């Protein structure tokens, strides 16, 4: 852990010293060959795709978990759980490949060019949905049986029970799940790289192509030299700091519960 942080820092330092942190936010464009290192469009790209995916995946995942715990007959619930686990096991390249040959042409018919923020959000949603669904499922399983019996005894409808008893009781578990999910959404590289179009720009619509921080590293690392290379390590460092912050947040949520 220390080793990784150390090496990222070491590789990123030359540019931080020569250009300064401000350059990454205020330079005109991202064109490292002309000494211009604006990361902002990529940061927006990451932020938009991740936020969109989290907003879509969270309700779907929680509904899936509730379905498993309270609505489905036992056999269907365990089958569905296996399916979600398999969904979690599909490698990101395969998601990316599927997105590229199926989803992108579909979106292209709707609004060219197809490779877009929307495609990225949809693929990411599929990828992070299992995370929140499995965590939520485990959390709901821990809600004490007595709560449910009490709710039934008071004649609460099943929706009322879920909304007023189960969800509040499992709040902190759900938050932990969301934090994990956000981490995965931010860190995902390959699938997003394959479907997002990778144009360096701040997207102005949901159909515009974007490039995320992770995709930027993967695309340019192969030929980057000197300051350009360091600039990529700076973005890696940025990603790592976000993940560490998220881990601390998760810790605080857990701590809050005790």
């Amino acid at each position, binding site marked *: 852990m220390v080793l990784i942080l150390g090496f990222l820092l070491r590789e990123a330092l030359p540019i931080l010293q020569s250009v300064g942190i401000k350059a990454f936010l205020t330079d005109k464009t991202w064109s490292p060959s002309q000494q211009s290192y604006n990361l902002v469009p990529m940061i927006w790209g990451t932020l938009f795709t991740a936020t969109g995916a989290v907003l879509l995946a969270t309700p779907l995942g929680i509904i899936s978990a509730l379905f498993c715990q309270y609505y489905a007959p036992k056999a269907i619930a365990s089958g569905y759980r296996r399916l979600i686990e398999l969904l979690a096991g599909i*490698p990101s390249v395969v998601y990316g490949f599927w997105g590229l040959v199926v989803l992108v042409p579909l979106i292209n018919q709707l609004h060219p060019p197809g490779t877009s923020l929307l495609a990225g959000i949809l693929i990411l949603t599929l990828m992070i949905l299992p995370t929140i669904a499995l965590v939520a499922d485990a959390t709901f399983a821990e809600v004490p049986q007595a709560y449910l019996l009490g709710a039934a005894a008071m004649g609460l409808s099943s929706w009322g029970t879920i909304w007023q008893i189960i969800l509040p009781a499992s709040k902190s578990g759900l938050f932990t799940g969301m934090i994990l999910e956000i981490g995965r959404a931010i860190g995902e590289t390959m699938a997003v790289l394959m479907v997002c179009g990778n144009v360096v720009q701040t997207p102005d619509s949901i159909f515009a192509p974007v490039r995320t921080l992770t995709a930027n590293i993967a695309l340019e*690392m192969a030929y980057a030299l000197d300051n350009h290379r360091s600039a990529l390590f700076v973005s890696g460092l940025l990603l790592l700091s976000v993940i560490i912050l998220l881990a601390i947040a998760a810790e605080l949520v857990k701590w809050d519960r005790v």
Partner: protein
Amino acid sequence: MIVNEKQQGIDRIISLLFWFVPLLITAIFIWILGDIVRGGIGQLNWAFLTTAPIDTGRQGGIAPILVSTLLILGVCLVVSLPIGIGTAILLAEFTSNSNWFGRLVRRSLDVLAGVPSIVFGLFGNAFFSKTLGLGFSILSGGLTLACMVLPILIRSTEAGLSAVPIEYRLSSASLGISRTSTLWHLLLPAATPGLLVGLVLGIGRAIAETAALIFTSGYVDRMPTSLLDSGRSLSIHIFDLSMNVTGGDANAYGSALVLILILLLINAIAAWLASKYNRSL
């Protein structure tokens, strides 16, 4: 009745929704899998698995890629297994929960497990490829993957060790057996199932990995001649065929199907081990 008609109406709509969402997700899952199987099944035959790619992968098979994948995985396991088991033993047996060192290591492991693979890739490129001078090679790819897999491996082995009842340790101590042989003859065999589950999960994660390998193990699709050769893994092959090679889709489908089949197999083994493990407890 306290539940009035309006509430019952809401209840019914919500129930419908709750059945609809899982159906939708199942449908998408079948769509993805069906699409890959339909596209890949035509490619999949013995020749595809045993010949080298021709014309940057448009024609021919995936034999060297399979070999590279296996070699990378082999390096990863040879390195991560001893380190992983060692650390897990240290954490579970020799440090208590309240110990600051143990806590620190556990926290960093949890953070490490969440670090994006591309960051591992950057690190592997800087450390193994550049600083240690291994270049783009199967060795540096495998070592990078080992770093990625370690957190999973350590945590599940540790869980396996902690699940061994304390009575085992007490009775073994009362018989005057030394700590080392207790560990070797009692605890490790008892923790093997947990270890295996972690191992299988780790292999799954390593095989599926792409981003960490692009700039550590490299792109070359030749048959590797040594561990210091650059080799292309199955997942990178799929990526390259679909992104950089026009007309490579058919073989990308084939490779994706092979990758998914391997993963399904691994998943099934993990599930089987886990259920066996639970029954034996």
